Structure formats: C-alpha cells, structure tokens
C-alpha cells in the first residue's frame, strides 16, 4: 500500500480530547492524528466511545476538554476541512431522489440547470465506488433497497461536492451490503487512500479491517488502548486488546446451581429459554437483539383479546421512550401492570394497589418518602427500579428486558442482579438483552447476535467477554 510521505500535514489532530455526558465519560482523553493516506481501522466493544470519537472528529460534538484542530489552517469546521461522515443509521432524505439528496449536502449546486449537474456528479460518484451499480439517479430513495441506500450514502460521502473529500468516516458501511459490493467498497477505500485521501473505518468484520487498514486504533472505555500498524496485529491479539484482561467471576457459579424447568419459549431464529433460566442476548449494539425481543414480546402479548394476566412483561431500557409515564406518580407507574388483576368489578382496588406498592418499595428499595410523588422526582436509577417493580409485580412467568440498566448506577445494579436471581430461583424466566458484558455474565445462557442472526450460544463457564467478542466480530476474510 502506498503511503504519502510522513511529512504531509495531518487533516485532523485531536489532543487529549475528552467528552463527558454528565457523569458518563464517553471519551476520556484521546490523542489521535490523521494524515493524508491513512486508513484507520477503529475497533472497540459497545460503549468504548467509537461513535463519540467519530462525532468529535466530524464536528458534531464539541469536546468537553482538549482540542480538535483541522488542517489546512483556516478551516473552521470539519465540513470545510473536507471531512465527511457516512453513518450507520441511514441519513438520506427518503422522499427525495438520489440526485436531489446530493443537493442537500452540496450547497454549491446552484443555477437553472442544477439538476443536470447533480445527476452527472451523482452518477460519476456511484460509478467510481460501485461500478455496475444499476441505481438510477432519478429514483426516489424510498423505492431503493437498504443496500442501495447505503451505496448512495457512501457515494455521496466520497463525491467531490465542489471541493475534495479529504477524510471520509465510514461507520459500519458494509453492514447491509453483500460481499461483492462490500469488496468494491474496500477496493475503493484502498484507491482513495493511495491517492492521498484518508479514511476512518469502523466495522465488526475484522477481516475487512485487516484488508484495508494501514493502522488500527483500539478504543476501550473512552481511551485509545492500542494504536499500531495493522500488520503488527493478529486477529486474536486484536480481540484481546478490546476485552478486559481478567473477567470477574464474583459469586456467579452459585446462581447456576439450580436446575431449570421445561422449555417455555422458542423463537424462529433459534432463541429458546427454560423456566427459571436467565437467558442473555449479547453482541454489538444494533445487531437485531432489540428487534428479536420486540418480536417475541409483541407476538405473545399484542392481540385483541388480552388475557387478564399477560404471559410476558417488558422492562424498557429507553425509559423516556417506552418506559416511564412522565405525568403519573410513582405508585401509578408501578402498579399499571397489575391493575386488571386487582380490579374489583372494573374499579381499581386502592388498598390492594397501595399494599402491592409498599411491598415492592421495600423489596426493591425505591428511595422516596412518598409514592404519590411524581415519577420524574426520582433519579434515573430509581425510575428504573420502578419499572422493574412494574414488571415483577405482575405474575407473568417470562420477563423481557431490553438493556434495562442503561444509565443505572453500580449500587442499583447489584440490587437488581440479586433480585433477578431471586425471581429466577422462584421459577421465572428472564430474557435479558444487555450491551454490557458484566451483566451478560450474570446469565445462565447467552445468545450472541451478529447481523440479525444468532452467531453463538454460550453456557456456563463459556460466558466470558473474550468468547462474546469473538462471536460478535466476523473473524473470516471479508468478501468470502
């Protein structure tokens, strides 16, 4: 791979950049410089700070401390410096045509005949990256397949757009592309870097990273833990660098002692669970875990004739979106799941409601003086406890949890772990999606998801961060 001389000034330089969201240190002092010709493979586990780093580089987030400098001198914004990002979540306007989408990001397209210019540039951009793509520049984006949309987005990222793309950040660009198209993209990245451009490449396919990257940066807990030429890494070494060195075993074995009952659940993709079992769903975020849970949950509960006692309950991780009823009191938030069971002739039995609340307040340790206070008066962790109380107070035998510990403090986590073990010992089944390995290690059995399918099933002593990482990342060669 040709590299430009070492003397070329860097396109962007981060010096000790940090980004904090409240108490969460998403990025914890990263120094990184990207020069023309660099192709940087960025790897890390969930929450390692990859997306935050990308957003700091492209100017989407201002660092809490440290500096981000763009060259050439005088470029104030990342856009001016020729830095473009292609995001994992699709960021095209679906109601516009392919060529019109180029207009959104290319303000230089003006004048009476801008459409013709946009069509030409878009067609050229697509032809350069994906020869033989077969996408019409006049097609509305919502008529394209997901892969085609991703191709358009990548092509727009590399398109000249009146200047020159100098650094293109690709966040999981191949996740929805098939092998042949992905190969075209990787070839283009190599060509682009050889001609003096730079690329930051994020992927869960380690084969792809090794194919294109000249340098690999490993992020962990918001820090750069390793930064070396790609040739100096082995695959196993890379996985080891991403994970913790010594997983804590805690008191987990004791939990796994009890025997499980009969199988209570089996989904088409191969997920199954037995009574009294804690089943974990793991893997990189966004690889179909939440969707699998939603399918299972809605499949079991959303029908016209709801039984009085639902067969499953749900604990939301995204509290504001699918958990908390913000205008209601703590009491009402917690007991809404049991109302049908404690109703008398269709009316709420206030005394029983208060009794259930008092019991769960004690068992789960919700810190409040008065359960009639509004739910938003509680801290995030305590709100989450109320959601747990809501789910566990219902008698449903299966509890579905969608990353329920998001933004929950350590103390609360320990409380909740204990309670989950307790309930599982009592015969309840838990389906637990988590992005944190520590939580997954609490489970009896773990399914690792990759690209919307189960890539591994781990049990007992096999549940280690290392094994999960191995299954989360594609280890085979790209393009096979």
């Amino acid at each position, binding site marked *: 791979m040709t590299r430009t001389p070492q003397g070329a000034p860097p396109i962007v330089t981060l010096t000790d950049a940090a980004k904090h969201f409240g108490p969460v240190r998403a990025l914890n002092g990263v120094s990184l410089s990207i020069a023309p010709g660099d192709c940087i493979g960025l790897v890390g586990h969930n929450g390692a700070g990859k997306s935050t780093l990308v957003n700091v580089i492209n100017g*989407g987030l201002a660092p809490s401390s440290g500096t981000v400098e763009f060259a050439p001198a005088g470029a104030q*914004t990342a*856009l001016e410096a020729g830095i473009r*990002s292609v995001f994992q979540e699709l*960021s*095209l*306007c*679906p*109601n*516009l045509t392919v060529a*019109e*989408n180029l*207009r*959104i*990001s290319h*303000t230089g*397209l*003006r004048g009476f005949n*801008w*459409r013709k210019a946009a069509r030409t540039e878009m067609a050229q951009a697509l032809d350069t990256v994906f020869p033989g793509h077969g996408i019409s520049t006049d097609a509305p984006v919502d008529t394209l397949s997901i892969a085609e949309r991703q191709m358009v987005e990548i092509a727009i990222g590399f398109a000249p757009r009146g200047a020159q793309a100098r650094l293109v950040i690709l966040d999981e660009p191949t996740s929805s592309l098939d092998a042949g198209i992905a190969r075209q993209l990787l070839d283009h990245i190599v060509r682009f870097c050889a001609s003096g451009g730079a690329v930051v490449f994020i992927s869960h396919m380690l084969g792809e990273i090794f194919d294109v990257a000249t340098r690999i940066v490993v992020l962990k807990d918001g820090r750069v833990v390793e930064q070396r030429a790609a040739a100096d890494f082995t695959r196993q070494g890379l996985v080891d660098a991403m994970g913790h060195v010594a997983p804590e075993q805690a008191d987990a074995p004791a939990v796994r002692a009890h025997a499980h009952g009969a199988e209570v659940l089996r989904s088409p993709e191969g997920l199954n669970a037995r009574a009294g079992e804690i089943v974990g769903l793991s893997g990189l975020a966004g690889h179909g875990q939440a969707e699998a849970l939603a399918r299972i949950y809605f499949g079991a509960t959303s029908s016209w004739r709801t039984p009085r006692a639902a067969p499953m309950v749900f604990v939301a991780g995204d509290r504001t979106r699918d958990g908390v009823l913000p205008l209601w009191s703590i009491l009402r938030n917690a007991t809404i799941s049991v109302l049908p069971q404690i109703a008398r002739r269709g009316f709420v039995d206030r005394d029983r409601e208060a009794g259930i609340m008092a019991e769960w307040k004690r068992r789960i340790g919700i810190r409040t003086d008065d359960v009639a206070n509004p739910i938003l008066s509680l801290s995030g962790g305590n709100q989450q406890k109320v959601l747990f109380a809501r789910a566990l107070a219902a008698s449903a035998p299966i509890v579905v949890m969608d990353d329920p510990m998001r933004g929950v403090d350590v103390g609360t986590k320990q409380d909740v772990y204990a309670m989950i073990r307790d309930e599982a010992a009592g015969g309840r089944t838990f389906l637990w999606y988590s992005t944190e390995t520590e939580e997954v290690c609490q489970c009896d059995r773990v399914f690792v998801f990759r690209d919307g399918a189960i890539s591994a099933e781990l049990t007992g002593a096999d549940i280690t961060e290392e094994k999960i990482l191995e299954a989360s990342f594609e280890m085979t060669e790209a393009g096979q």
Partner: protein
Amino acid sequence: MIRLFTRYRILLPVVSLALLLGATFYMQPRAMSYFGLNLLFNLAVPIALATLAQMMIIMVNDIDLSLGAFVSLVACVTATWLNDAPLVGLLILLVLVLAYAAMGAVIHMLDLPAIVVTLGMSFVWGGIALFLLPSPGGVSPDWLRALMTIKPPFVPMAVAAAVLIAALTHLLIMRSGIGTVLRGVGGNARSVGRAGWPVVRLKALAYGLAGLFGVLAGMALVGLTTSADANIALRYTLLSVAGVILGGGEFTGGKISPVGAVIGALTLALAASFLSFLRLSPDWQVGAQGAILILVLTARLLFTRRDAQA
C-alpha cells in the same frame, strides 16, 4: 395498473378529478362550457391557494390549524385597509407574512408542537379580524375585482389561474434547489442540519411561504366575493388539509405534490357543485363531501397496500 398508480402518485388525484368532472357533465351537460366551467371552479382559486399554503407547512412535517382564521383576517385587511390606504394595507400584509415566518422559527427553536401553536394563533388572527371588521362589509379594491373576473380567451379564468399557480409552485418546490432542500427538511431534518443547513431558517422560510400563499388566498377570495367577514374562510383550515392529502401528499415525510394539491382543491370545490346537481339537501353536503374524501383515500391506501404485497 396498480404499479402505475403507486409509481405515479399524481395519477389518482387526476383520475378522481376526471371522474367527478365526467359525472358532473353527465348530470348537467350545460356546465360543459366556458361560462359553466368558470362557475364550477370560481371559488376553487382561493381554496387552491390556501391548500398550497397548508402544503408548505405539511412539507416540513407540521400542520397549520390557523389557516382559515388567517385567510379570513387577510380578507378583512384586503377589504378595508388595502382598499382605503393601499400602502398601509400592503405593509400590514407584509407584516402578516413575516409573522408567519416568525411563528415557524419559534416552533422550531422551542420545539413546540405546531398543532398547539397554530391553534392558539387562530384565535389571535380571529380576534384581529373581528377588531378590523366587526360586522360583514368592506369593499374589494377595484383592481383585484377586475383581476379575478378577467375573461381570458378559450379557457375560463379559474382554470387558467389554477394551471398557472400549479406550474409556478411546481417550479418553486419540486424543481428549484431551495425547494428541494425544504422538502428534505420534511424527509430527514437531522441530515439536512448535519449537511450544514440552518434548519431554523428553512422552517421560517416554509412558514413564510405558507403566509404568502395564505395572503394570496385571502386576496383572491375578496376579489371574488367583493366584501369580507371575519369568519369568511374558517372552513379553509380543514379544506386545505383535505386538499393536500387528496392531492397525494402525506402528513409526514415531506411527501407532497403542488400540482396534486391544486387538483385536490379543484376536486373539493367540484364535489360541492356536484352534490348540488344531485339535488342533495345542503344539510347532507358536508357529510357527502367527507364521503368522497374517504373514498379517494381508501383507493390510495388499497393501491399502496397491494403494491407493498406485490
């Protein structure tokens, strides 16, 4: 066949209008004339302009519940100030357009629900209108009256105006660069913002355009009716929403069609005349108009569902 309808969304509104027009001509062959067409579509011109105003708002994923009150207010201003002191009148209308733009900016900056803000503003517009013109009256400026009753050769004014308005808005919204970006705001505001566009200014522009078309609608209405009333156009709020949807637009996602919206407005105006030709009692007309609307929307839903299955 189904493919064709989902591929070219404009077909369904066109076919609806053609069917309704055919039925009207069948019921009342005398309507098939220069004079008859003008009568049928006369009141469609202000409705078409109001529909386009509503379309500008729906284009950026909002909805405007104050449009009817706003058009009424403009009508009152036109029949009083614009007639008595044209310069002051123009100035007032300009301020009204700017007020709309400011409303858009505020809605975006404070992240307020447009449906609530516009509902509140409808009472403000209504109050000012009553203040200007406590009882029905006022006089249309002569030039406006002349403009709205002009008799071009071959095609009646109403049809010519509808075609002209549709063509101009199509150029502005569907063909021009800025129109494309405005539609992009409806499609994916975040990515538009990420590409470096000031979304708040774009929203203000969309609302400002809505204000402009609202002003034109009010003026056209006074040109036709020759006088005004503080409640003259209250039903335009819902008519305009119906027109946009009838014309192939959607409530979210920036999917709109100016030509479709004008056709939708014409269809709504024609539906009223058609029901009179059926000698339907006026008591039933509003309901029957709703039934036509439901019919067309059902057809559209069926087409998209079938296409999704295929």
